[in-house]
């Protein structure tokens, strides 16, 4: 835990990192608390009125179905962050597991796994997801999370594998081995503190990527399904009213930009803390 706390502390002392962390916290708190305080994002008070511009009752205006955009953006935050966090957690677990197995076992297993990773990295993640998700008429949220998570571990596995390989060659590992200690034990003991930093950086940056990916899928109709509000889905719906009600698409887009930017600023600060040479 020690390196994680150190990295987090260092990132907090980084000006951009602190701003990023601070905004992320606000977004997270809003996503958790907001929906209880705001009008029902699904209710359509007066569908005949349609969209109204930002004003007193609706700070972000209403969409073509007269739904409050602010509460839809806030509920969308809950959906986007939830999907992103779960998917990234899955990716990191898979990446760490494959990297560990590949680096530790080496030989044929390693060769096969890494060729698989090479091949998978040659297909942009979006295309893999499009192929699989297009099967459903309405994509279930659980499937979305699992599939986004299952397609995000390739690069992570390489990081972990490289670290295992490096550790295997370290003098102290060899020395301990010569003294009769179990190599597996040593590697596992030293691996965790060494990879936890890079993993944390990768995970933080991956959160931003996954939010963008999920928004993109929803924009193509393969992500979160209406009427559940999602940022990408809201932008898709706003396409129809681009001219008459531009605010319907602008606010969810801004929410994406702010959230992803904050995550990336924080991730960058973490990266500088973990690897000072990149600063």
């Amino acid at each position, binding site marked *: 835990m020690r390196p994680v706390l150190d990295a987090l502390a260092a990132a907090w002392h980084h000006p951009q990192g602190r701003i990023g962390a601070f905004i992320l916290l606000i977004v997270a708190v809003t996503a958790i608390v907001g929906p209880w305080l705001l009008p029902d994002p699904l209710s359509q008070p007066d569908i005949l009125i349609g969209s109204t511009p930002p004003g007193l009752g609706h700070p972000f205006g209403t969409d073509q179905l007269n739904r409050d955009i602010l509460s839809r953006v806030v509920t969308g935050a809950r959906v986007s962050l939830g999907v992103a966090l779960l998917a990234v957690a899955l990716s990191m677990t898979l990446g760490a597991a494959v990297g560990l197995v590949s680096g530790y076992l080496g030989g044929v297993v390693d060769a096969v796994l890494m060729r698989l990773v*090479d*091949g*998978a990295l040659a297909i942009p993640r979006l*295309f893999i997801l499009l192929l699989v998700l*297009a099967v459903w008429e309405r994509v279930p949220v659980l499937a979305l999370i699992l599939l986004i998570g299952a397609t995000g571990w390739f690069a992570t596995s390489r990081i972990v594998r490289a670290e295992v390989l490096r550790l295997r060659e370290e003098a102290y590992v060899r020395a301990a081995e010569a003294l009769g200690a179990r190599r597996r034990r040593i590697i596992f003991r030293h691996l965790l503190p060494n990879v936890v930093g890079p993993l944390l950086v990768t995970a933080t940056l991956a959160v931003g990527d996954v939010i*963008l990916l999920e928004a993109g899928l929803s924009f193509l109709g393969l992500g979160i399904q209406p009427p559940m509000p999602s940022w990408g889905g809201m932008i898709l719906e706003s396409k129809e009213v681009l001219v008459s009600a531009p605010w319907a698409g*602008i606010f969810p*887009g801004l929410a994406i930009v702010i959230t992803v930017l904050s995550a990336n600023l924080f991730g960058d600060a973490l990266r500088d803390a973990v690897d000072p040479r990149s600063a």
Partner: protein
Amino acid sequence: MSGWVLRRALQAAVTFLVALAILFVLMRAAPGDPLLRLGGDRPISPKEIAVLRARYGLDQPVGRQLTAFLQGLVHGDLGVSIEYGRPVTALLAERLPATLLLGGSVLLLNFTVGLWLGVRQAVRRGRREDRWLTTLSLAGYAMPSFWLGLVLAWLVGIHWRLLPAAGMQDPLLSSHAGWGTRAVDVLSHLVLPVLTLSVVSIAATMRHQRSAMLEVLRLPYILTARAKGLPERDITWRHAWRNALFPVITLFGLWLPILVTGSVFVEAVFAWPGLGSLAAGAVGNRDYPLLMGTSLLVAALVVASGFATDVAYALLDPRVRLA
């Protein structure tokens, strides 16, 4: 050197074959039956399904399907598009030029403006300009390309009426117009998609150029160059940048997927008649053969560009070239 190129080519071939296998497995192992969705709202009878299965070869064992697929691939046959009813390869060939034009322009912008900004950042490391450029480029990176596209289309195309916001050519342009007029027409259609894709992709270029440059700037030979009294401009661009360009070139292979992914959205938003909008359309229509063909082509492009950049790298670096 040539032995190395051969090995690298072999590796690229293996990578592509693995990618192909993954795509094939994804298509066949995906849960649910895509054919059930073909009828749209109309339910499809089991008999119709059986006919369709036979038509697409889905009634065969998986091994046979794979060999059939590979045989087709070798002959340039990727099947028939469900939506267009035409060979997938023909559609891809038709749409490729527009995407190359779009991607090439973005590439050009990235590798001029992006590299220049990255070098500036490294030279002014840690100062205000560096920090602002980082934040700005990250803000661009954080923008969904489809959202930025829609905002620009609305603002520049519809609100201000400055530039066309859709398509690649003005449909009302007289067929007798000279090639100059046509070129200007295409260019004006090109501006907004290129701008959108560049904004969302330039951060990656800048970041890598910056860190590659920082690596080089701390090497002893930079000190030598400074100690002999060279102007800073020569130190930055001749001595440092020449060396800091190599790592950026290898980045190209990693960077292409970002560009391809972005172009799916940007082409869809701006109705740009390239591969991206073809793929986006295929998603909506659940046009599997088309989706598969596009993915395969993209994978081939990614693998080929990775190979090409590695070879280019080797050719540019005298340590490798003369080894």
